[in-house]
């Protein structure tokens, strides 16, 4: 290394690329399987949703309505948080997001710990794509998560949502689950859904990515792109899925076919924060989707190139702004972990919000109770916030409840 320097440029990053080649397009490999990745909040105040403030009014006509109903002054315990989430009854406007095939959640006990706790809470849970091709179906794989959830969930609440990607179609994940006795009870009680994964927030336009030992790569090379991105002699390789090709007609017909082939399951569609996200949501709903999930650019992942984490995709707030109201569910995810951000999403039109990385961290902290405790905190915050706003049911929330400093006094611009 010479004494050359270049002020104003990220010199170390440039030198890392010069040293390591395409490995430097990705996060440092020693974090794989132990770190969860996502967009860095902008310096000095987070993303737009973080900067939004919740603004309770002085006059609270809906509190008066509640007072009539109760015959006493309402309190935060009187807030009704029940929600219909993509065709499922949930005690809270919450669900657990998909996490897929990365080492973090794929093969270990963490996926099962989250499943059991989500079941106990009665909130819907999504199981990510590529779990079957990477970790199998029965023992360590997908069915163990469904079984853990089903054993814990109270009657009449929640539901399990199973994703299938383009590569998963080879493994026929939905056909397997639809005919499996383990899922029969959920199916018979209307608590099974299939989710078409169009994309995800952390890497819009890319398919799933995992890092594999070179020796394990041969077994999946027929199905996935296996790339020497970390160097020709490196012990690990990059395994990438296809993002799948979508046009309006392809999306519409895939939803139709899901409803046709699995008439007793609910149909969910997960979108990445694309610039046409509003149009895509409309098409999915019109084709009969029970829920559209929008994963904002803040959404987490087990592995993604930082250029996507930092510079690609619409922030969640902008996604919500671009999607018009619809009677079917709109679900939102992206860095949600506490009640404030959850409430802001709900006030901007979401039916429910998803916990992704936060759910994994919580279960990692305490495999038996971590997620339950995290959700109880979020629940209490939602009750306190809604009560402060003088609103006692989730659908009553609206843009008036929020204020964004950069937009001055114009309330209508949210």
């Amino acid at each position, binding site marked *: 290394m010479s004494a050359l320097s270049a002020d104003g440029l990220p010199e170390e990053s440039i030198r890392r690329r010069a040293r390591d080649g395409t490995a430097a397009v990705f996060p440092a490999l020693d974090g794989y399987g132990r770190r969860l990745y996502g967009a860095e909040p902008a310096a000095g105040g987070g993303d737009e949703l973080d900067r939004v403030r919740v603004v309770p009014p002085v006059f609270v006509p809906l509190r008066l309505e509640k007072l009539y109903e109760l015959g006493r002054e309402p309190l935060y315990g009187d807030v009704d948080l029940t929600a219909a989430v993509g065709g499922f009854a949930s005690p809270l406007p919450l669900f657990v997001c998909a996490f897929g095939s990365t080492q973090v959640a794929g093969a270990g006990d963490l996926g099962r710990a989250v499943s059991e706790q989500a079941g106990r809470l009665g909130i819907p849970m999504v199981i990510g794509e590529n779990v079957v091709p990477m970790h199998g179906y029965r023992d360590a794989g997908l069915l163990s998560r469904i079984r853990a959830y089903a054993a814990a969930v109270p009657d009449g609440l929640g539901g399990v949502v199973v994703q*299938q990607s383009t590569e998963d*179609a*080879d493994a026929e994940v939905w056909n397997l689950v639809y*005919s499996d006795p383990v899922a029969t009870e959920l199916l018979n009680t209307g608590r099974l859904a299939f989710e078409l994964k169009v994309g995800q927030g952390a890497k819009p336009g890319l398919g799933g990515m995992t890092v594999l030992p070179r020796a394990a790569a041969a077994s999946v090379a027929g199905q996935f792109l296996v790339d020497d991105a970390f160097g020709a002699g490196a012990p690990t390789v990059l395994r990438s899925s*296809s993002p799948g090709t979508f046009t309006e*007609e392809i999306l519409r017909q*895939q939803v139709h076919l899901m*409803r046709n082939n699995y008439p*007793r399951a609910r149909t969910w569609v997960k979108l990445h924060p694309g610039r046409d996200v509003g149009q895509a949501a409309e098409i999915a709903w019109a084709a009969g989707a029970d829920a559209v999930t929008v994963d904002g650019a803040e959404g987490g992942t087990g592995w993604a190139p930082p250029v996507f984490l930092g510079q690609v995709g619409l922030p969640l707030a902008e996604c919500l702004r671009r999607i018009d109201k619809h009677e079917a569910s709109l679900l939102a995810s992206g860095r949600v972990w506490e009640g404030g951000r959850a409430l802001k999403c709900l006030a901007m039109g979401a039916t429910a919000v998803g916990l992704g990385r936060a759910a994994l961290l919580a279960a990692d902290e305490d495999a038996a109770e971590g997620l339950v405790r995290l959700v109880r905190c979020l629940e209490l915050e939602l009750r306190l916030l809604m009560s402060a706003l003088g609103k006692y049911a989730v659908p009553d929330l609206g843009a008036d409840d929020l204020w964004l400093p950069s937009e001055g006094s114009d309330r209508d611009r949210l």
Partner: protein
Amino acid sequence: MTVAPVMKAPLPPGTREHLLSPVTHAALRLQNAIAIASREFLAANGFVELLPPMLGPVTDPGVRGAKQLDVDFYGHRYKLMTSVILYKQASLLAFDRIFYLAPNVRLEPLETATTGRHLVEFHQLDVEMRDATRDDVLALLQGLMRHIVAHVLRECTGELAALGRDPGAFTALLREDFERMTHAEAVRRLQGLLHGQSADAEIDWYGEKLISEQTDRPFFITDYPKGSRGFTDGESRTEPGVLRNFDLIAADGFGELASGGERTHEYRRLIERMRESGENPSKYAWYLELARDGGLPASAGFGLGIERVTRYLGGLETVWQATAYPKLPGVLAP
């Protein structure tokens, strides 16, 4: 969501009891006559019978909710045929008119075990004609059904008597053209019967039984909406979203006997339709190469369920009575 009434057809007895049953004997003799009559009719119309392939890297994807069976083929995942549709199209490179009497295996959803109409292992008379239209194959199928029925009425009087089947049930079939109605019309009729049939999905199993109970001879439902079928069913050039396909539905509640139509055969259309049905085109490499390099012939055809036709002609309560070794969804049997 529509929830149709649960159908509760009985399950098969043990193998010995089934094989010793006079009902099984009559049904299998009837089936034998159906196969003879089919071959006779198709040979007279210039069709070449090919022996069916059983394994391939891919198979028919257009099967609602049914799982395919994987086979380890020297370290590669192959499939048992759910139908030979892809091979039917390819075989037209050799002959203009072909047919197979082909075994199919589909792991149908558990809920179909008691419909009386689903088997995991069954056989289809699979017919394909180069450069044919849907009208051509509707006429061919009507002619085939009449030929089969006339043959059975002539040759199987003892079997029909043993099964208690009144030959008068087929008078209208032999005399009158089979009615044709569009899927949209079928949906309207079902909704008129207070059945909550979805307008953009396949006619559900109960709906099929219901509509089949309203007639005295088989009829065709045409023009299914695109999202209800796999990519091989051809889409109308003049009415986007409408498929140039059909089902043949039996009278008296016996339900679907055959499916068919004009086929998707152009390379670009195949790619689009594969994606619209959630398929990964790379799985279909051998078939797509044929379509791209020199092209697949335009064609139309159908697959006629042999056990289902046997059930209809014999008036059997369930379709498993028309097979010696019934395999029903989720039921372990030899």
